């Protein structure tokens, strides 16, 4: 019998896995074997730790040592130094950029200090492929409590009282949703888990499913009990193979342990879960589109009402919740609605997971209490802007959201304040931008995504978004007029007002919010034909200062477009005539700037 005194937790999330954490795991096994430590040291592949910037992550318990950027070659060092000799490998520890000190315990790292991990409570702690580890951390206790001590009405009342709102984006009150579905009598109802995470950059649902699939299985069973459903379906995108594998294992193990199937825990309650695969269409995150896709129909939304709670999958009452929403449910049951609602703001309770990305030092997955400010997220958890540059904006809510600026830095973040600021919570993407980001170009980027992902059903989204994209394209190419800006604003307003589903209704948000907050930048593009961020290539011109140019010709030699030639002007003090760039042939690659040793070339 093994009696482990040390645990090695290796991140087995998709990010770290692609940075070779699988090999790290193998190396630990081998090297610990060489030292005859396999009975004393347990090696576990966990889910995501969240600090993806520094991955692959290896954590040694019980002393909570947090090793960053670990390579397979580092493993021998960790085993022989840390595990055998008790000396931490300082070169692999996180360095606090403020004071350059090594931080060994993750709890002392700025990245984790302000986080409150409820949905992510087990990610990075348990082996997601072993249900016993989940159970050891309280997994399925909530299901037991529901089945043995609570009526379905009490479960719904608890969720309602907690103030939990949908984490998929729109923030509909979860308890109310359950109640509506519970009210509808039917021979069959369905619990549907929306795991069709599609916002660019957002990966919290994947991380939860990869790191703690049992919490979702448990929560779906609780929901089934509450609304009177015996069947659960997880609509998961096929691009999440690891999440699919781990979810399948969790479902299988839950069946073996009698936590799914017939007569769960002897309560007489039956519940089982099946998977349905999505083909990666963003619009299938919209619940009616998701249901149509599951039915084998074209994945496009239909008008509500009827709501899925009345007529959902196969026409039966169905309750659709997102992965992160479900992940909160067992904790609420165990710790109580009062505890949960003590976290957060008046109308947004609990925590929210954000995928922090962009020009920020600590990229990763964070879970913070509602009501935290952007400043805390960006400058404390996120470690500030990369390269010490200046913060410009943060995009939240993905293609449906908008940009928040400096003036919003101290706004407490919750569902309602984000909407009031012209953005939205969305599924929790948070892209931080500095002065090198061009706002019309950012708006264009998100709109390109929406155009690709529109189902095409309604005119405003199908044609309107395309036309907005074309206007934005003109703006970023310097071919637009102020009339175009006017047309863009009107069109954005009409699309928001008249599109069929949430995708279309929110698709103008990136444009409207950047126009509201960065109007000057739009005008610059249109009137001055300038892009201050230097992103819109069509608006840039490379210019040689003929007084500084010594005529060495290095720029011309390195120009792939042969756009640089000699002039007949020689600056005073120089021997050779200076060079000049022909704007029409220049492809704006920037090679000449890099080749000029005299700082004579600049972008204007």
């Amino acid at each position, binding site marked *: 019998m093994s009696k482990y005194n040390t645990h090695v937790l290796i991140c087995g999330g998709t990010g770290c896995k692609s940075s070779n954490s699988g090999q790290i795991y193998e190396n630990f096994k081998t090297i610990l074997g060489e030292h005859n430590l396999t009975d004393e040291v347990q090696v576990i592949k966990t889910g995501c730790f969240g600090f993806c910037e520094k991955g692959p992550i290896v954590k040694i318990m019980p002393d909570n040592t947090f090793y960053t950027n670990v390579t397979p070659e580092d493993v021998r060092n960790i085993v022989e130094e840390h595990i055998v000799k008790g000396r931490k490998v300082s070169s692999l520890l996180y360095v606090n950029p403020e004071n350059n000190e090594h931080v060994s315990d993750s709890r002392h790292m700025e990245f984790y200090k302000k986080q409150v991990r409820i949905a992510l409570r087990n990610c990075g702690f348990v082996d997601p492929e072993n249900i016993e580890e989940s159970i050891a951390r309280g997994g399925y206790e909530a299901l037991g409590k529901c089945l043995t001590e609570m009526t379905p009405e009490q479960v719904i009342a608890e969720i309602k009282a907690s103030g939990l709102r949908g984490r998929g984006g729109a923030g509909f009150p979860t308890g109310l949703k359950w109640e509506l579905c519970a009210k509808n009598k039917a021979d069959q109802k369905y619990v549907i888990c929306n795991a069709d995470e599609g916002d660019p950059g957002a990966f919290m649902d994947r991380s939860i499913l990869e790191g703690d699939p049992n919490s979702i299985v448990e929560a779906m069973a609780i929901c089934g009990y509450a609304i009177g459903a015996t069947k659960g379906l997880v609509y998961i995108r096929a691009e999440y193979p690891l999440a699919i594998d781990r979810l399948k294992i969790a479902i299988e193990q839950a069946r073996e342990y009698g936590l799914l199937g017939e007569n769960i825990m002897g309560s007489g309650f039956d519940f089982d879960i099946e998977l349905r695969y999505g083909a990666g269409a963003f619009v299938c995150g919209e619940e009616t589109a998701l249901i149509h896709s599951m039915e084998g129909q074209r994945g496009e939304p239909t008008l509500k009402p009827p709501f899925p709670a009345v007529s959902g999958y196969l026409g039966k009452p169905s309750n659709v919740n997102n992965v992160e929403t479900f992940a909160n449910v067992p904790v609420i049951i165990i710790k109580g609605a009062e505890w949960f609602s003590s976290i957060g703001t008046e109308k947004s309770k609990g925590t929210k997971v954000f995928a922090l990305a962009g020009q920020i030092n600590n990229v990763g997955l964070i879970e913070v209490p509602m009501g935290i400010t952007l400043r805390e997220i960006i400058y404390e958890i996120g470690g500030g802007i990369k390269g010490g540059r200046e913060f410009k904006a943060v995009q939240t809510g993905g293609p449906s959201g908008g940009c928040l600026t400096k003036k919003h830095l101290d706004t407490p973040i919750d569902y309602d304040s984000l909407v009031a600021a012209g953005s939205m919570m969305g599924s929790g993407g948070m892209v931080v931008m500095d002065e090198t980001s061009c706002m019309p170009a950012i708006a264009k980027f998100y709109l390109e995504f929406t155009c690709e992902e529109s189902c095409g059903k309604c*005119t405003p989204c199908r*044609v309107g978004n*395309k036309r907005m994209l*074309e206007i934005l394209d003109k703006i970023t190419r310097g071919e637009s007029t102020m009339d175009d800006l006017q047309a863009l604003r009107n069109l954005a307003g009409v699309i928001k007002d008249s*599109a*069929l589903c949430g995708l279309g209704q929110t698709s103008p948000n990136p444009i409207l919010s950047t126009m509201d907050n960065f109007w000057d930048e739009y005008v610059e593009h249109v009137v001055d034909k300038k892009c201050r961020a230097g992103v819109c290539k069509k608006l840039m011109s490379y210019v040689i200062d003929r007084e500084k140019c010594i005529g060495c010709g290095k720029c011309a030699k390195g120009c792939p477009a042969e756009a640089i030639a000699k002039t007949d002007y020689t600056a005073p003090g120089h021997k050779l005539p200076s060079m000049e760039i022909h704007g029409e042939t220049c492809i704006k690659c920037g090679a000449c700037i890099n080749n000029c040793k005299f700082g004579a070339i600049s972008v204007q």
Partner: protein
Amino acid sequence: MIKLSIDNKPVEVAEGTTILKAARQAGINIPTLCYFELDGMNFENKPGGCRVCVVEVKGRRNLAPACATECMEGMEVFTSSPRAINARKTVVELILSDHPNDCLRCEKSGDCELQALAARLGIRELPFKGEQTTFKKDSTLSVYRDMDKCVYCRRCETMCSKFQTAGALSGVNRGFPSVVAPAFDQPLGESSCINCGQCVQVCPVGALTLVDNINDVMKAIADPTKTVIVNTAPAVRVALGEEFGQEPGSIVTGQMAAALRRLGFDYVFDTDWSADLTIMEEGTELLQRVGKVLKGEEAKLPMFTSCCPAWVAFYEKNFPDLLEYPSTAKSPMAMFGATAKNYFAQKIGVNRKDLVVVSIMPCLAKKSECAREEFGKDGNPDIDYVLSTRELAHMIKQCNLDLNQLPEEDFDSPLGQSTGAGVIFGATGGVMEAALRTAYELHTKKSLPKIDFEEVRGLNGVKEATVDFDGLPVKVAVCYGLGNARKIMEEVRAGNPNGYNFVEVMACPGGCIGGAGQPYHHGNSDIIRKRMEATYREDAGKPIRKSHENPDIIAIYKEFYGEPCGHLSHELLHTHYFDKSDKIEATLQ
């Protein structure tokens, strides 16, 4: 009842009423584009996609599609607020920004709902310029597809996949290039399409149009070596007048015959005549099958009618195991063609190759039917060309004729005289009623006590009746819409639990009067109702109303065919069916 206000007008409507219908009730006509309903015929396309009908609802965050939003107590709706009008106009401008706007030469010009909408909204400029979607043009013998003009209203898809359950058309692609098309870029002709053409009838624009054969016919008429004869289907005469401004339900039989004569056709005949012939063959076949079953011999029941070519294509593609159930009798048009080329040509001493037979049909599937190889001889088809009611109207107009001012003339003899039974073929239930009138009398040798079989009339999608043939109960069913037919076929496959003996199937809403070649009804089902009333009016006014009493029919059996279901009629008036399910399987794979 629910009380609300629309444009400050108090309105009271039943629960479940949409804003669109409530507004219409209040005399406020909100424009629509994708919305399409055939009231009482179980056809509704309500995707809420085009957003033309958006209205402002007080207290609501965004605009509401009137077609799909139900009225609520106390609702305050504004259909023409600046916000609603701006959105509506912008939406139409967006649609036009991805439309060829080649109205001058578009087949649909004058009948186009988008054109009418743009005119109504006073659109004078096209503010949005940009990329336009383009697709490969595609055509069957009946339907021409130019999807560059598609506005993605999905009416055709609902018609094809829900109403007809043919499943040839559905939404493909996503975002800007979304379009309705057969799966996997298949040409329509190689898909599960049955050429019913109803997609054309419901298309608001010129994306789906008919294959125009006017020039072929004009050329034949102009050719001095050709004798060109024409036959006109029952449903044409109750709809053609609409194209000349007459009220729906006007009967223009006599003017139509006059027009055809002035267009240069050498003989003007009537498909109603061959409808009577069909009844003789089909009625006899039914009695033979029933008789066999009564004697304990093998015969397939229920027998299905086989006049509708879309229906024939449908069972050949979807029910290859049930091909012995439909009557082997050819359609009235095909019987006309066979008689014309084999009997009439000889009679007037013209080589069949120099006799051009033209059919005027309410139907687009007939354009495909006439090309069936077995409906001809040595590569020369029995019917050379099929023109739809709409094409005939165009031709009359092109030739500077005004139908309204023409005198009423009679059809020519000997293929022109018909009975009321032939006339009612045009409406759902008509073939059944005509067959019952004859089969009853042939079987019982008694005169019918009541000639009108009201129970098989009307616009219900499926009708049932049991007719007492002097002690022999004959159970019949009538349906239109191939979705309804599919259900009955599946029942037959499962052992015919309803015990039907005879089933009439028509593909189009209301039967041939609602055919795809008829003047566009734009979803106004009253037009179809009025055509139906006219059909029965024409029947009631006929001196002879039973096919077997038609003197020309009696004469042709005497002179040529011998007896119904006899040797020669088997050769010329009956056919057989082919397993074409590979088309469906190809689609599924």
